């Protein structure tokens, strides 16, 4: 029993809190100095074989998910839970206390106290709770024979602020744990016009079935005049059982969600392949072809043959492509086209419009995190709790009116658990009100 008490006191102590928080803060620094998630060879190369071995044993290369770091977070949680259990009952008692049951001697010893006495006979006819019902003070009165005892308070719920702060940290942990066990993080590359039902996890590149199909209809990049990227955009369509459910353009900071799985625009890749759209201007017949670089394709119905014979690129990005186009037995035409540009071509007495575009794959981050809303709720509570803990205080005021042999005495007493200077002002205001009322009354 004694051991349990000791353990309880240990886990409820603020010393442990300071120790744990310091340990987490200090060990966290390690992970910012030593690169995380690299291969063993990297650490051997950079720090030597012995040190790399030592890192391996202590899980330094993945320290934020190591047993000892989780241990510290667990210790923090235990500390928070036990500390709260230890202290909360007393706070609850203060919040729900019958403040008119406390002994008068205690009221008289309050940090703010003032007393008035007068022999005026009319004085006891003043209804103090009504007279002092300013600024939102709501009084409760208990009559004790000729005497009366009143109480008013504000902000008693502010006392739970600290518990909301501490609880919110636990809620954030719960959200993170749910995300860890019931969610996943992965990614996938989808070429334009292709679709996928699977993505691959970051953790071990295992495929995960989405349960639906996602198709990349188009990918586009826009640039500023100075060459910096302005926008990455993918047009994605969700399909279920071959049926299109909906289509959405996603950009960085503007993802798409379906069935709890969210797709984020994260990267792209330019291919040595092109999409060519050919439209017969007379009939408006139009077809799109996926055209590998320097290969010849044909549209047999129209007796057309075509290909991309040359291209000009910066990095992965094709700026211009040279089209080779032959209709029937006419001589072939070659023409440079800017990426995404359109030209008109006449061949064999027919007009065609051609549009050529480099084929891209869009790189999507894929995440399922059923815990994220719990984390956000915890964050909201954290801010609310901090506000309550720091800016609100529990102010209590007692008023006692006593009929004595020589007249009437009035006592005003009060206290506040925080921000005493502000409370002193409030108290002075009530004091002035009482003095004025008495003065006014005496003059009548």
């Amino acid at each position, binding site marked *: 029993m004694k051991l349990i008490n000791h353990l309880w006191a240990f886990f409820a102590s*603020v010393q442990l809190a300071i120790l744990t*928080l*310091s340990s987490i*803060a200090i060990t966290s620094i390690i992970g910012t100095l030593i690169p995380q998630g690299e291969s063993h060879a990297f650490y051997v190369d950079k720090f030597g074989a012995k040190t790399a071995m030592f890192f391996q044993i202590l899980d330094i290369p993945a320290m934020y998910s190591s047993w000892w770091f989780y241990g510290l977070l667990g210790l923090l949680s235990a500390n928070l839970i036990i500390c709260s259990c230890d202290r909360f009952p007393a706070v609850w008692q203060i919040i729900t206390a019958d403040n008119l049951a406390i002994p008068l001697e205690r009221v008289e010893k309050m940090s703010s106290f003032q007393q008035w006495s007068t022999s005026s006979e009319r004085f006891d006819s003043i209804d103090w709770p009504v007279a002092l019902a300013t600024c939102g003070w709501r009084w409760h009165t208990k009559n004790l024979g000729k005497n009366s005892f009143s109480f008013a308070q504000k902000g008693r719920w502010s006392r739970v602020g600290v518990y909301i702060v501490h609880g919110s940290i636990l809620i954030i942990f719960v959200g993170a744990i749910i995300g860890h066990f019931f969610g996943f*993080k992965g990614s996938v590359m989808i070429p334009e016009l292709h679709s996928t039902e699977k993505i691959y996890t970051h953790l071990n590149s295992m495929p995960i079935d989405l349960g639906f199909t996602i198709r990349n209809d188009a990918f586009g990049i826009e640039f*500023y005049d100075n060459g910096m990227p302005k926008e990455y955009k993918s047009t994605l369509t969700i399909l279920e059982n071959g049926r299109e459910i909906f289509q959405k353009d996603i950009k960085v900071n503007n993802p798409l969600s379906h069935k709890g799985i969210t797709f984020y625009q994260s990267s792209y890749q330019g291919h040595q392949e092109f999409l060519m759209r050919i439209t017969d201007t007379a009939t408006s017949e139009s077809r799109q072809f996926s055209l590998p670089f320097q290969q010849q394709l044909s549209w047999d119905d129209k007796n057309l043959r075509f290909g991309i014979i040359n291209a000009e690129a910066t990095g992965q990005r094709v700026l211009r492509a040279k089209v080779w186009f032959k209709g029937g037995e006419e001589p072939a035409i070659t023409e440079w086209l800017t990426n995404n540009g359109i030209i008109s071509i006449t061949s064999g007495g027919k007009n065609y419009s051609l549009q050529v575009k480099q084929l891209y794959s869009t790189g999507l981050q894929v995440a399922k995190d059923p815990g994220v809303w719990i984390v*956000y709720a915890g964050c909201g509570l954290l801010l609310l709790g901090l506000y309550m803990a*720091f800016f609100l205080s529990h102010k209590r005021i007692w008023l006692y009116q006593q009929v004595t042999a020589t007249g009437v005495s009035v006592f005003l007493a009060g206290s506040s658990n925080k921000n005493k200077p502000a409370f002193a002002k409030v108290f002075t205001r009530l004091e002035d009100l009482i003095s004025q009322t008495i003065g006014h009354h005496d003059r009548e």
Partner: protein
Amino acid sequence: MDSSQLLGITTFTYLFSTLLYVFLLVFKTPRLGPITTFFTVVAFLIQTAGIALRWVESYQMGIGHAPLTNMYESVVFFAWTIIALYLAIEWIFNTRMIGAFAVPLAFLAMAYASFAGNIGKSISPLVPALQSNWLIAHVITCFVGYAAFAVAAGLGIMYLLKNQSQAAGESLTAKTDHLPSLSFIDDLIHKTMIFGFIWLSAGIITGAIWANSAWGTYWSWDPKETWSLITWFFYAITLHARYTRGWAGKRIALLAILGIVSVLFTYYGVNFLLSGLHSYGSGS
């Protein structure tokens, strides 16, 4: 007149303002007080105009965005917030003696922004990841927090000076006896730390929300995130030590000064000394 000229002038007006406050402190000339405040308010308005103009200029360039998106702009905003906070404190508590400890911080920040070779001052367009309202909320909340911690550190220095001269005996006391009382400074350090703590909390949260909307992960333990958490823990520990273990006075003043080191590392050190994912705020 363009924004960089206005912000350049601000650097010098804050320097002059600093000198005025130091003069007030050293030579005890209360008659100069109102002029000092007036001058600082004017300097603050010049800076405000500079920031507003920079915003307008970005729209004129066709890449409009709030001027809070690179190292230069954030340092300027940091200085602006320090002065705003300081002026609020001067007004609320009706004392000018803190100026000599707060205004120089804004001057140093502006001087760094103006003269350091490694931070670009040009208005540049936003890459896709930075095009988010959460980013704006993130930068504002973080920097209000940082500025509050900076003021707390200034107050910490003030506390230690006063404390030392009091300990040294009567003759020296005269030098600092017009400073606010130790208990007043102590209380104000606590208040500014609390203020900073709430804003830093909001800053970390808005940053997490932004990361989640851009990459699908609200927390990835990259060095910037981790350091902001370390700083947050540092102030949480300080608040606990004060509230539950009764730490006050010299200890808290020292912690306030130590805290700003952690803040500066989070803000600056991580970008330039550690390699990280956090592309935002890096040199160019």
